[in-house]
C-alpha cells in the first residue's frame, strides 16, 4: 500500500466531553469523529466513533522573502470548552493558528416569498403578503467555518498551542517565543516568553512544548531541548523570561554519552487533570513531576530502554530526533505514550504495572482483545517476543489521546487511526 505523505496523522485530540475526536494530518486536513450512542441491542459495548466532519484547515503557503515553503501540516489541535450548540477548535500549522466553528444544521427555512421561481429577488413593491417561513427538517449537515485567523506572530515553527482555563485566552509557542492571544483578537498578541539571544550564534537551547495550567489561568509551563521545564506566573511580569520554578533532574554521570543532550530533549509536557503534577516525555522515558518539587521527578517510566545501546544507529537514521507525545487518563491514574514498531505503552501509576500493545491491522480485529507485546532484550528470545533488531523504526506512534472520562484511547499509527475501548462488564 502506498502511504501518501499527506495522509500521515500529525495530531489527535478528544474534546472536553469525549464526544468528539479530532485528527489533523500532514495534508492540512482535519477529520472529526463523533461518538455514536450505544446501541440498545448491544448495551455491553460502547458506541463507535464515526466520521462527523472533514475539512481543509490549512493550505501550503510560500514565504517569498525566505524562498521557503510553509507546510500545511497540522501540528496541534486544541478544543475549546463547549458553550453552545456549536463546537470550536484551534488548529495550527508552523505559522498560523485558526479558530474553527463546527456547527450542525438539520433544519431549513422554507416558504420565503421574496424570490421568484428562478431565484431572482422580487421587487419589494410587488410583494403584497407577509409570509413567515417554516422550519423544515433536512438531512444533517455539519459545517466547519473559520472564525478567526491568528497569523504573522511567529518567526519560528509553532510547536504548541494551549487554551487557558479562563476560556478567553490561549498561548502559542514556537522554538524561541511564546505568545498569549485573546480568542476574539487576531491582529495582536502579547509576547510572554522570548529566549532568542541577541547573537544567534549563542543559541544553545530551544522551546519544545508549552501548556497552560488546567486551573490557574496565570500559570503555564514550557519545556526545552536541554531537558528542563520552566513554570511561569504571568502575574509576576509582562515578559515571563524569569521563571517561577525550574525543573531539572541532575544528570547521571555514568550514563553520559555523545547523545545525552539529544535524548534528554523534552518532546511533550502535559499537566495532570488535577493540576498537581505534570508529565514530560524525552526520548527514552516518561517522567512525572510534582509541581512542588523541582530537583527531580517523582516517577520515571522507561518506555524503551533497550534502545539505549542503539543510540548511534538511531542517530544515524535520524530517529533520535522523533518527538513522541504522552497523555494522562481521566483520573490521572495511568499514562500512555508511543514507541516504534507501532507499539504503545501504558503505565499504571498505582500498581506500577505496564503494558505494551500494538496498533496494527494484523493484531486489531474488531471486537478482539489486544494481546500484550514484549521486546526481548536478552540473548534468548522467547516465543511471541520480538527482538530489538526486528523492530520497524518507520512505524512510529507519536500521537496518542485518552478519553477524558472513559477508558477509550485513540492511537495514530502513520496514516491510520485506531480507537481502542475497554470492555464494559
Amino acid at each position, binding site marked *: 500500500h502506498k502511504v501518501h505523505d499527506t495522509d500521515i496523522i500529525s495530531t489527535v485530540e478528544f474534546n472536553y466531553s469525549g464526544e468528539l475526536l479530532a485528527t489533523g494530518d500532514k495534508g492540512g486536513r482535519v477529520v472529526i469523529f463523533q461518538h455514536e450512542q450505544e446501541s440498545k441491542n448491544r448495551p455491553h459495548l460502547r458506541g463507535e466513533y464515526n466520521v462527523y466532519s472533514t475539512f481543509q484547515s490549512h493550505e501550503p503557503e510560500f514565504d517569498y522573502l525566505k*524562498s521557503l515553503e510553509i507546510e500545511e501540516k497540522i501540528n496541534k489541535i486544541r478544543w475549546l470548552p463547549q458553550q453552545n450548540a456549536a463546537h470550536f477548535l484551534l488548529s495550527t500549522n508552523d505559522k498560523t493558528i485558526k479558530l474553527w466553528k463546527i456547527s450542525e444544521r438539520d433544519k431549513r427555512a422554507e416558504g420565503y416569498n421574496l424570490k421568484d421561481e428562478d431565484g431572482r429577488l422580487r421587487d419589494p413593491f410587488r410583494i403584497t403578503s407577509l409570509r413567515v417561513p417554516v422550519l423544515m427538517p433536512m438531512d444533517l449537515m455539519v459545517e466547519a467555518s473559520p472564525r478567526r485567523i491568528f497569523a504573522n506572530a511567529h518567526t519560528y515553527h509553532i510547536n504548541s498551542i494551549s487554551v487557558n482555563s479562563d476560556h478567553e485566552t490561549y498561548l502559542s509557542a514556537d522554538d524561541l517565543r511564546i505568545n498569549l492571544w485573546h480568542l476574539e483578537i487576531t491582529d495582536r498578541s502579547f509576547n510572554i516568553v522570548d529566549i532568542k539571544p541577541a547573537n*544567534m*550564534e549563542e543559541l544553545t537551547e530551544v522551546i519544545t512544548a508549552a501548556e497552560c495550567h488546567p486551573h490557574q489561568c496565570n500559570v503555564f509551563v514550557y519545556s526545552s*531541548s536541554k531537558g528542563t521545564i520552566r513554570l511561569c506566573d504571568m502575574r509576576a511580569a509582562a515578559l515571563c523570561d524569569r521563571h517561577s520554578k525550574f525543573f531539572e533532574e541532575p544528570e547521571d554521570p555514568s550514563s553520559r554519552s*555523545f547523545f545525552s*543532550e*539529544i535524548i534528554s*530533549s523534552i518532546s511533550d509536557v502535559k499537566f495532570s487533570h488535577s493540576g498537581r503534577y505534570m508529565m514530560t516525555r524525552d526520548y527514552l522515558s516518561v517522567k512525572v513531576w510534582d509541581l512542588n518539587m523541582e530537583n527531580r521527578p517523582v516517577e520515571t517510566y522507561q518506555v524503551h530502554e533497550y534502545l539505549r545501546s542503539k543510540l548511534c544507529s538511531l542517530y544515524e537514521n535520524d530517529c533520535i*530526533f522523533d518527538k513522541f507525545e504522552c497523555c494522562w487518563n481521566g483520573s490521572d491514574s495511568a499514562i500512555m505514550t508511543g514507541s516504534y514498531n507501532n507499539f504503545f505503552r501504558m503505565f499504571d501509576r498505582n500498581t506500577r504495572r505496564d503494558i505494551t500493545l500494538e496498533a496494527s491491522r494484523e493484531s486489531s480485529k474488531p471486537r478482539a482483545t489486544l494481546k500484550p507485546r514484549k521486546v526481548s532484550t536478552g540473548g534468548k528470545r522467547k516465543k511471541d517476543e520480538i527482538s530489538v533488531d526486528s523492530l520497524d523504526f518507520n512505524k512510529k506512534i507519536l500521537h496518542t489521546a485518552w478519553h477524558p472520562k472513559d477508558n477509550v484511547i485513540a492511537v495514530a499509527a502513520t496514516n491510520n487511526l485506531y480507537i481502542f475501548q475497554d470492555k464494559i462488564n
Partner: protein
Amino acid sequence: MLGRGVKRKWSCLEEAEVVSEARQLVLGLCLEKLQRYQAGVELSLRRSVLLINTLRQIQEEMRSDGVGSCDVHPDSCLLRDDFREDVTVTCPGCSEGESPPELPSQEANGSDQQKPPAAVSDAVNAMGYLGDLALDDIFEDIDTSMYETSDLPSAWASGSLPQSHSTAGSLQSCLMDLNELDHIMEILVVETHLVGPGLQNGFSL
C-alpha cells in the same frame, strides 16, 4: 614476549582508540547532517541546535584530550581493519616521558607516519572553524530574512558570496583565503571517507 607493563599500555591504547573512533564517527555524522540541505524546506531549529551542541561537545572533548598529540591519522587508519598496529600512538595516560610503545609491522605506513602531528591539530582547528561557519550559515539564514538561505557547500564551491547578502558582517568571514579553503576542503574530503560516499554533493574540488 610482552611484559606486564606493556600489557597495561595496550589496554590503555585500545580504550583511547575506541573512544577516538567513536568520536570520529559521530563527528562525521554531525557534519553530514548539518550539511544536508533540502531545497525549499526550512531546517528544524531544534535539530540544528542539538546537532551543533553535539558537535561542540565532541570538539571540547577532543581539545581537552589533547588530540593533537594522541590520535589516529584519519585517512590511513580507519580504512584499515588493523589500523591500531600501523600508527604510532601515545595516549595521555601512558605517555609521561615514555617513548611510544614498540609496535609490530611499522614499515608499511612509513610515509603516513612522517606526517607531522600539526596536521591533526590543524584538523581540529578546522573543525572548530567549520562549526562556527555552520552556525553562521544556519542561524543567520533562519534569523534574518535579509539573507537568502544559502547552501554552505555550494557557496564554497562557487567561491562567491550569495547575491542577497547586503552586509559584509559576520558572513564575510565565510570568505577565506583560498589556501584555507583548500585545506578545509581537504579535511572534509577526508571525513567523507569515514562515513561513506554521498557527502560529496555540492563539493567540487
